[in-house]
């Protein structure tokens, strides 16, 4: 291994540059090019971060569950699935937090309150706490396989909350508005350029997620490898104990 090794490869570098460009354009589009809302005024711009954030969180937790399921059902029990699950959940927690913060700021300006206990907000808060617990379980110690087994079970349980969070606005009356794009009536509720900006937000945040995920996963693999390398050395050391 060389000392200059990093978690980047030419592909991820290209992805990183593309992500940077996409996010920059989102900033311009969201803050300058797009118009104010007729009721909310400029606070509508919060949506271009809020919605993509929770989208990335759903994506991340879904991926966590998927990787955990593969880990559990796969005979080989390859730890790469566990690392992807863990990396994905970390990013997901970050983006739920972003979504909660932007949402409550928007709520203060529009609803007149930072927080209400309606079905959507309450279930999102549960989701957030559950995955913080998931990350805590990953740090519980023990062997890699023990970590993988415990956290996989938790991930498969926790992902059940996502449909509840997403459909809470359709199942119940909430202060939170219903989905504007993924509306069951299939009628888009946004004016043209707003819709484009939101869509661009989803794309660029997804790219950001992919970029973060690849790097975080590689970092975790390296951490595990360091421990494994340590194991080789430790085995050698352990064997020499016998001579003494």
């Amino acid at each position, binding site marked *: 291994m060389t000392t200059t090794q990093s978690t980047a490869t030419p592909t991820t570098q290209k992805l990183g540059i593309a992500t940077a460009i996409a996010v920059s354009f989102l900033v311009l589009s969201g803050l300058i090019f797009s118009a104010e809302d007729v009721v909310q005024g400029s606070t509508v711009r919060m949506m271009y971060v809020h919605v993509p954030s929770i989208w990335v969180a759903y994506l991340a937790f879904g991926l966590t569950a998927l990787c955990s399921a593969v880990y559990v059902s796969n005979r080989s029990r390859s730890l790469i699935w566990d690392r992807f699950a863990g990396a994905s959940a970390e990013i997901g927690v970050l983006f739920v937090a972003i979504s909660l913060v932007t949402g409550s700021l928007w709520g203060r300006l529009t609803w007149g309150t930072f927080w209400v206990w309606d079905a959507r907000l309450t279930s999102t808060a549960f989701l957030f706490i559950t995955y913080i617990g998931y990350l805590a379980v990953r740090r*519980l*110690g*023990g062997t890699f396989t*023990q970590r993988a*087994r*415990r956290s996989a*079970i938790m991930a498969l349980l926790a992902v059940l909350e996502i449909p509840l969070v997403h459909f809470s606005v359709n199942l119940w009356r909430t202060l939170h508005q219903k989905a504007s794009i993924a509306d069951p009536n299939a009628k888009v509720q946004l004016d043209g350029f707003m819709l484009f900006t939101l869509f661009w937000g989803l794309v660029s945040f997804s790219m950001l997620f992919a970029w973060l995920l690849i790097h975080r996963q590689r970092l975790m693999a390296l951490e595990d490898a360091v421990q494994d390398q340590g194991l080789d050395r430790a085995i050698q050391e352990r064997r020499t104990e016998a001579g003494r």
Partner: protein
Amino acid sequence: MTSRMQTVRRVSLAVVRKDLRIEWSSKVLLNQVAPFSLVIMIMFAFALDNEGILQRVAPGLVWLATLFSMLVIVQRSFAVETADGALDALRVAGTEPLGIFIGKSLALMVQLLALELMLLAIALVLYAVEPTAMGYAETFATMLIATIGLGFVGTLYGGLGAGARGRETLLPLLLLPAVAPVLIGATRATEAAFGSGGAQSSEGWPWIGLLAVFAGVFGAVGALAFGPMIEE
């Protein structure tokens, strides 16, 4: 298949008898947990000493006190297993983690139920709540079904951290969000049963349905996952 079921039955019976015997002889529930929950109820009574408020929030307080006490009982339930390496011996002896799971869950349920009955009595006296006959039936149904769910989820998460460092602080973080549906469901069902804040008793039964679903999910997940959870 039958012989496996027999093993499960045998192990779970042995474990539940053992756990209850330990409780019977150490009286931790009676001497420590029950006074602890009593203190919670009284402290709330001090803090919320305002006409009407106590009656309105009484159902929530009963369940909050139950959940906090449950943390202590679960902690204790696995501390006796790890104190002298019994969990290792149990893993070697039982061969059937399902039996351990069922046994420990049942023991936890019995203890929780005893505690809840005490808390209910306190709430009736301290907070001046007066349920109807129908309300009592609804309250007991809520307690029974909520307790089954709590027993399963408590055992599952208790086993998850058993023997690991820092589990004392981890258990509340994991368990409290997981039991949030029970807190909400049981509180709303009890509110309906008590008639708090103008609620009608018919409003409680759907919540009891939710509690039953919770119990079913965690019972089945525990049956699948408890074995892997307590492994090294």
